[in-house]
């Protein structure tokens, strides 16, 4: 198969897998939350979520009607061929997926308010590039819901307050977000770098499985501490009260300027959709997050 077409097929499959089948780690976390939730209303919400996940798989339909802004992450091996064909392939896959799965057209011109109708437009789908050694290409898609995007927040902590300042920043962000981002949520938190870098890292860390804490024990401990603290808020599933406000926390960081302590919190909704595949130089494809179901 011609490489451009191969990229397109893989991207289409990833979009379809992502919007229909939630990753196993997210499903497991939701099941556990349902078992442990003590609020009646909260438990009903989690039950409805689990029922809906099953129905989506049964009917092969998107788990949520907000099929999100489409964001791709490409880890491109420096020796891989035809990298110049990737962006065009991703656009073609997006148009095809919008029509055939279908996806909701979610790309609107901010000046004219016109919806392009096919999920493409200036910078959309957005592509994050990373050049890595080797000849393989790893494609990942995140279909990011608008409700959880609306409460993402970046800010600057007073460096003297350090990590304590970060904890307050996160707790306040979750409380301010309340019911809006479809809790239970997953939090991606990042510090350092700069305003843009921290947000980029925060969002990217949402791609990590929930059962994969940060390899640095001190950061893993902070993830756990924030997880427990935020679940004490009582916001609960869908903000109707309960002890499950978040399913997990991921933290990433970059070194910071002595005068700056940028911080960012990226929220993902419970419908935390992501899918990845690796395309080898010989044209074989390995799906990393899902088994290919067709």
């Amino acid at each position, binding site marked *: 198969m011609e490489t451009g077409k191969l990229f397109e097929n893989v991207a289409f499959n990833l979009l379809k897998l992502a919007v229909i089948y939630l990753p196993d780690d997210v499903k497991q976390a939701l099941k556990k939350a349902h078992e442990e939730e003590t609020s009646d209303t909260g438990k009903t919400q989690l039950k409805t979520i689990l029922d809906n996940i099953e129905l989506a798989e049964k009917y092969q339909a998107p788990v949520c009607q907000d099929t999100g802004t489409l964001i791709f992450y490409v880890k491109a091996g420096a020796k891989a061929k035809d990298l110049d064909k990737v962006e065009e392939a991703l656009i073609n896959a997006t148009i095809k997926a919008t029509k055939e799965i*279908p996806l*909701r*057209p979610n790309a609107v011109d901010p000046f004219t308010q016109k919806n392009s109708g096919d999920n493409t437009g200036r910078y959309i789908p957005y592509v994050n590039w990373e050049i890595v050694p080797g000849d393989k290409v790893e494609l990942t898609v995140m279909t990011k819901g608008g409700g959880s995007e609306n409460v993402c927040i970046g800010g600057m902590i007073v460096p003297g307050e350090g990590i304590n300042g970060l904890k307050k920043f996160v707790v306040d962000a979750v409380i301010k977000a309340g019911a809006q981002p479809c809790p239970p949520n997953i939090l991606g938190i990042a510090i350092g770098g700069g305003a843009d870098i921290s947000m980029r890292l925060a969002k990217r860390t949402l791609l990590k499985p929930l059962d994969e804490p940060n390899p640095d024990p001190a950061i893993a401990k902070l993830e756990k501490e924030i997880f427990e603290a935020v679940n004490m808020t009582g916001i609960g599933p*869908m903000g*109707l009260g309960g002890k499950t406000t978040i399913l997990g926390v991921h933290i990433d960081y970059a070194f910071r300027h002595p005068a700056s302590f940028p911080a960012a919190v990226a929220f993902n909704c419970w419908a935390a959709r992501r899918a990845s595949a690796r395309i080898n130089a010989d044209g074989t494809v390995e799906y990393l997050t899902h088994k290919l179901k067709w």
Partner: protein
Amino acid sequence: MTVYKFKTPISEEDVRKLKVNDVLYVTGTIVTARDQAHRRALEFFKQGKPLPVNLEGLAVFHCGPVVSKEGEKWTAVAAGPTTSTRMDLFEDEFIKNFKVRVVIGKGGMGKRTTDAMAKYGVVYGAFTGGAAILAAKAIKNVRSVEWLDLGTPEAMWIFEVEEFGPLAVAIDSHGNNVFMDVAKNVEANKQKIYQKLGISP
């Protein structure tokens, strides 16, 4: 907690029976409206133009569905709720002018809407955010679509539904609002969390 099953058009008397934390299922006609459709509906009212559908006694649904079209026939593929807080801006006028009885969405609504609901006899039914297929399965027919020039998410979709729910009655017509109660509780918990984390407020 009581479970109610209502058919549209719903009367004010029936709506007044509902209390927060009751569960409601709606059968009949529900009409979607998000930001743009709310804005346009209110403009129509100002200009004395009738809406494409009479909303009296119906449910308005904050939703931008995924739809597919075969021939002339539309189908709702996925149709969960969107965040209602964005419609707070319009909802009191919308309720007053169009006499809907149920507002369906997620994320809750504020004091202005809660007051209007008490005054005119309306409830807010919270549908689980993201439960899009469960919602779509209760939609038995897409009767029509209006204002498609706004794009499919923002258009006004007129759905015929059967036992659409479960809707958690989160704002009733007696001034109670679960989301505002939860917010108060969260504010109290915040101090405990600060203490646990060693944060000075």
